[in-house]
């Protein structure tokens, strides 16, 4: 099926038309800019962040001459599905999963390792591409993943009506005083971490991510506790817009949401608060498809997003944090102030990075989420 269609793909069509156009416009091609042109990179990333195409890609093309063919997908489940197709059919060079997921992608035979000599590993802020995160970016010593930006999932609270304990805790999500907007699987993890911090679990919550027996034991407890507190949930969210509507349209006073949700609501009387147990943190970045056609250009692209300009642009587009040294100074002052308001050094040191979640774990997690929804 896919192979039948391939000879007619947009790219071959574009190449053919470009060749024709090239003959017609020969004088225009002999300019310094055109000579610097060194091809293209097929990048598949997140939908809904228009500043990538408006600001970052033009800056990259200006700096390197490489054109970015951008495919937008709504979430990384769709990206994984697309990558599974593309590993047979081609069409993707670079794609942007989170750090906890590339292991599963690699186990599915989708990725190739990165040539570190063509990247600038010194560009990254400490802690993002080295240390624990660095270890999680590598397999058998080979680098597979470099970060593009990072962010958090924490409490979005209404200034006037949210009842937060002191210090604010994940437990506030399960208090009958608050009307909450949640997503099921994160909520169960929040319940687990809250119980863990209270010393109410038979073993550490983190054990569940490496041992399926422990997972069932711990998630059963978290599920039972979460069901008891379900009465104050006013709406589920699965994406940015739903989370936003949960607060504005359905009147939630508290939620466990992405930082971007808090940022977008900052002028409507909501604040973004790190719980005392530590905010959930994610780390998003680039991987190279096993069958990438434009490997050099892809590495160049990854390297650009580690420079101050690229990292700041990427983080601004996502309303998140930059990965490159010197990027913070180039950030939108609004975004910078918003982050510094939530994360002081203590909150930063407490960040809880989502552990790697295997396919088996995610499937089981889905069952727990189903039970929680149905209860």
């Amino acid at each position, binding site marked *: 099926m896919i192979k039948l269609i391939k000879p007619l793909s947009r790219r071959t069509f574009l190449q053919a038309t470009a060749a024709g156009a090239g003959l017609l416009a020969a004088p225009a091609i002999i300019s310094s800019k055109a000579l610097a042109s060194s091809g293209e990179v097929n990048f598949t990333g997140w939908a809904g962040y228009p500043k990538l195409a408006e600001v970052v890609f033009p800056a990259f093309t200006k700096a390197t001459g490489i054109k970015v063919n951008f495919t937008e997908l709504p979430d990384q489940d769709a990206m994984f599905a697309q990558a599974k197709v593309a590993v047979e059919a081609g069409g993707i060079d670079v794609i942007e999963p989170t750090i906890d997921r590339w292991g599963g992608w690699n186990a599915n035979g989708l990725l190739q390792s990165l040539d570190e000599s063509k990247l600038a590993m010194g560009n990254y802020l400490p802690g993002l591409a080295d240390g624990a995160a660095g270890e999680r970016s590598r397999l058998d010593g080979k680098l597979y993943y470099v970060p593009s930006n990072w962010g958090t999932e924490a409490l979005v609270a209404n200034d006037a009506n949210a009842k937060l304990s002191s210090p604010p805790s994940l437990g506030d999500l399960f208090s009958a005083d608050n009307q909450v907007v949640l997503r099921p699987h994160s909520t169960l993890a929040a319940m687990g971490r809250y119980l863990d911090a209270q010393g109410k679990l038979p073993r550490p919550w983190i054990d569940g991510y490496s041992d399926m027996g422990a997972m069932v034991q711990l998630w059963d407890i978290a599920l039972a506790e979460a069901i008891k507190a379900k009465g104050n949930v006013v709406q589920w969210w699965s994406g940015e817009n739903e989370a936003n509507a949960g607060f504005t*349209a359905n009147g939630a006073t508290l939620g466990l949401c992405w930082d971007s949700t808090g940022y977008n609501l900052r002028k409507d009387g909501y604040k973004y608060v790190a719980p005392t147990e530590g905010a959930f943190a994610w780390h998003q970045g680039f991987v190279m498809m096993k069958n990438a056609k434009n490997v050099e250009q892809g590495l160049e692209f990854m390297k650009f997003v580690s420079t101050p300009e690229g990292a700041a642009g990427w983080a601004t587009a996502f309303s998140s944090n930059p990965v490159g040294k010197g990027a913070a100074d180039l950030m939108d002052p609004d975004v910078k102030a918003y982050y510094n308001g939530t994360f002081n050094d203590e909150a930063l040191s407490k960040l809880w990075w989502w552990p790697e979640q295997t396919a088996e774990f995610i499937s089981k997690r889905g069952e727990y989420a189903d*039970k929680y929804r149905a*209860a």
Partner: protein
Amino acid sequence: MQDLLRRYGATLTGAFVVLTAFWLLALVILPNVTLFESSFRYYLPVVDIGGPKDVYTLANYQKFINNPVETSFLGIPFTMPIHMITFFNTVIFSAIVTVITFVLSYPLAYYLAKMVSPASLPTLILLLFIPLWVSEALRAFAWYIILTFNGPLNSSLVGLGLLDSPIRWQNGVVTAYDAIVIGLVYTYVLFMVFPIYGSIQSLDRNQIEAAEDLGAKWWQTHWRVVLPHAKPGIASGCVMVFMLSAGSLLVPTVLPSTRSNWFTQTIQVLMLESQDWNSGAAYSFLYILLCTVVVTLVMWLFKVKLSDIAK
């Protein structure tokens, strides 16, 4: 075929046949066969596909009867597998949607077919059609806005003094599926109106008059004369609305409560969140099969034959 050849010549006819065959084979049959085949295989990493672990199995179908949880129906507690509960909820509420659309559609269809003056009929039908020109997604979202806590319904009811405090309509006043039922009825009501309208239209006015002349009360006329005649239209309307509701993903996703789960959402989670296409495929085929069984049973119960609907 001869007709086609005579009218368009060999080249064009050949092109028609080849294109239709391509459409059917490559875009309909082949993907479904692939999905069907993959539903009998384990979800494995790409490296293990074709290896010793890659064998045929019924395990994906068996997941439907795993994971029992405690629940209750009409106050009677019992345990049932979680996805089976989702399936029964979906079927029951799709049936409720079907009954409500029928109750709304039958008087309207009868009015359009037998009572309205022929001159105003086109205008009325146009008025019914206009909402169909708006996309289903927008119509569902419009209901989301209407039913939200800070939405227009609550603010007008509170403003008029009919309510003391706003209600969370979306989370269900009667059941957890209120908002979904409203959304589905609104989306699919015309699929009921038009088949019934079509079948009532073919009823001879004289039969209704004869019934009235012979002293039948208005409800007897409907029960004994109009309804039996309209049965094929009602049956096809019901089958369509039921299957469309049971298969809807958009409305249950836009208008969920915190306790609702539609079977299509379970399949979507398997396919996209768990990335387990094999189980997703198994659930899809199981769902088609089970829905067909339900429809067949109901048709048997109401003594409707497939050939009636085809009319």
